[in-house]
């Protein structure tokens, strides 16, 4: 009874999102709710990635000049993603969504390897491992959400042909400490950037599709 009263007093603007139980065939979450959820996820994933990178940089990469070597080394750089506001606003939403999907697919494998390798690293701090695991989990959920959005916004879109292959696993497992650390640095640097891209694109799309450019 006390909880009920408490809720009445303090939680006046509770907006409960409708939840689709898994497996329900005709369940249709509204597009607005879908976008709210994916934006929340992408924001969260980028925050985690940023923290991970800053942590790693401070701990292992000081004075090694890794940043200079990390130029143009992300495996997703081949994707033709927009690189400023104009480009992002000119690109049609469906294509942008497809690009986002491609990026997310491209990160499935590297994230898995990251979790495995960080788990194997004895000197890796616990926070790094937990963040890595969390990013991997949330990335999959984000993927599902965007697929649902694509199904609603642009149904009938073909499966993506273009996806980038990540081939830096040997570097991650290198015996040389410097090489190995640089491989991690590079991975985290690219992850931070790509997660920001996804986050920004989704926020753009949300304002465009749901609020008609009037956020």
């Amino acid at each position, binding site marked *: 009874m006390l909880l009920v009263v408490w809720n009445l*007093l303090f939680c006046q603007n509770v907006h409960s999102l409708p939840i689709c139980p898994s497996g329900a065939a005709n369940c249709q979450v509204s597009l607005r709710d879908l976008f709210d959820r994916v934006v929340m996820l992408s924001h969260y994933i980028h925050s985690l990635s940023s923290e991970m990178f800053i942590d790693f940089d401070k701990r292992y990469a000081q004075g090694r000049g890794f940043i200079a070597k990390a130029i143009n080394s992300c495996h997703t750089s081949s994707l033709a993603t927009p690189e400023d506001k104009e480009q992002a606003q000119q690109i049609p939403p469906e294509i942008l969504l497809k690009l986002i999907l491609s990026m997310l697919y491209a990160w499935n494998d590297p994230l898995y390897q990251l979790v495995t390798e960080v788990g194997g690293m004895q000197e890796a701090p616990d926070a790094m491992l937990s963040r890595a695991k969390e990013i991997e989990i949330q990335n999959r959920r984000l993927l599902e959400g965007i697929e649902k959005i694509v199904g609603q916004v642009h149904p009938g879109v073909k499966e993506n042909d273009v996806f980038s292959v990540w081939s830096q696993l040997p570097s991650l497992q290198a015996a040389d400490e410097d090489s190995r650390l640089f491989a991690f640095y590079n991975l985290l640097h690219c992850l931070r*950037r790509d997660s920001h891209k996804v986050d920004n694109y989704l926020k753009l799309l949300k304002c465009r599709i749901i609020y008609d450019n009037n956020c």
Partner: protein
Amino acid sequence: MADFARRQKKPLIHCLSQEKGANMKGNVVSTTALVLLFLNISLLNGQSPPGKPEIVKCRSPDKETFTCWWKPGTDGGLPTNYSLTYQREGEKTRYECPDYITSGPNSCFFSQKHTTIWKIYIITVNATNRMGSSASDPLYIDVIYIVEPEPPQNLTLEVKQPKDKKPYLLIKWFPPTVIDVRTGWFTMEYEVRLKPTEADEWEVHFAGQQTHFKVFSLYPGHRYLVQTRCKPDHGYWSKWGLESSIEIPSDFPTKDTTVWIFVAVLSAVICLVMVLAVALKGYSMMTCIFPPVPGPKIKGFDAHLLEKGKSEELLSALGCQDFPPTSDCEDLLVDFLEVYDNEDEQLMPPHSKDYPGQGVKPTHLDPDSDSGHGSYDSHSLLSEKCEDPHAYPSTFHIPEVNEKPENPEENIPCIPDPQSISKEGNGPYFPTDESKSSTWPLPQPGQHIFRSPYHSIADVCKLAGDPAGALASLLDKAEKDILKSSKTFETGGEGKVDEQKEMEDAHSETKQDASWPLLREKAPLIHGKPPDYVAVHKVNQDGVLSLYPKQNENGHQPEKSRAPEGNKEYAKVSGVMESNILVLVPHAQATNMALCEEPAKKAPPSLEQNQSEKDRASLTAASSNCRGPLGGLDYLDPTGFVHSFH
């Protein structure tokens, strides 16, 4: 420079010296001197190539443009030019800063055209002067990680006092001009802070992505200062914007009912918890705090009758035949159980401290004196039940101290077999079918009339004018006695030993020496003639039961006037039958009484609480002296000791 000059000097001098004569030599020397002088003057001025510049920071206010600022090093005393060059990730071309002016001195502004997001910029600043140049360390930046917006704009404050609602301060602002929030390119979060003018600490509130904020808890009559700032979704906080101030009107009501609601809810919960606790454990708590006052237990007292107001029935239930008492009440004033061979015999009262010279005659006991009441009560209970059924209604009962199911309808058989006296000390004191007091029968033939010497009833009969008061006093006395007796017989056990212990306990509890044991009576009528009973006087420490002989009603001095032959006293238990019936053996000890009297008389006559022990001692002594013909008989005629109590 000096070295160079020197180096230049040497070959010159050398050439000069080699080629020409003294004239040429003089010209060379002057030229050299001039050059040296010039160099020296330069050195003395401190000119040098510029020191290394340093890029301080780069910031983007809107994720579309950005600016870099540098700090120049030493300029070497010469005018120094600074230039900024950059290179972008994935490109090989080096560019120079497009705009040195917009952002102020020592800065470079990158317009939209020159800004690319998600690409690393490699920026270098060169310092050049006449003497040389130097370059700064390269800076690697990605524009998305250097976003720091301007503070919010157009801060407005307004005190709103809507009807039927709480008044508040409404703070509104706008995002910085250059920010593009509408398209979703830029996502901004805000913070508000305010304080009264004289306060030291700011009150900070996070406002999320909205551009307004309501403040409710403000002190009326104060002037408040308000500021805002903002932050991109991933970036740095802006500086605090310009201050705005507002005066809160003095009639600003500051009710805060939320706190009262919370307090009310909390107290309701506490009350509920207390009520539950009391309900669950109330009984035990209350019995702890207020021990239950035992209700009055008057034998024969029917509360229902009292409610109905039928005093006659009530009093008759109590044992009075009618009210106001008539001469019939005399019958009730018998002090103890009477067993009659014939109608004239009567037992003596167990003690006559209170009744000097009234050995047998039923007297009115002092209602306030407690001595002997216990025994009378127990005695009376049995006798009550064993009364002539015509005299008493068959349905009477006394409310019990201990809750045993009552059976008021049961007609208590008052004619136990002399051979089969059930003895069971357990059970509550009060007469129910399970617990009845009984006395030792005398094997005297003839009818028996049991009278109840319920002194308190006698009092009731007497105090006709004040039945309520009498009842009250009765109840009190009865209560005490009953409690005492019930306590003593609470823990019952079977067998002689237990009963003896109980009797000893009873001895110690009751003030008087004589106590009537509570014996369970289970007495089917075996013989045709009614058996006789004797009263157990006491039990001494060896577990000897000393019994009263049945006495004449006419108050004969028992120890003197009784014909020994006529007296058969049951003073020895020969065995126990059926685990609750004592089989008694008659025994005549009258001849020994004279001998036994002496030690009894020597016993101090006082009736103190430890009298019982002394009596036991004396009894034992007497018994040891008074070995009768049966030898080894340890039972004594207690009547011999009656004198000692006079």
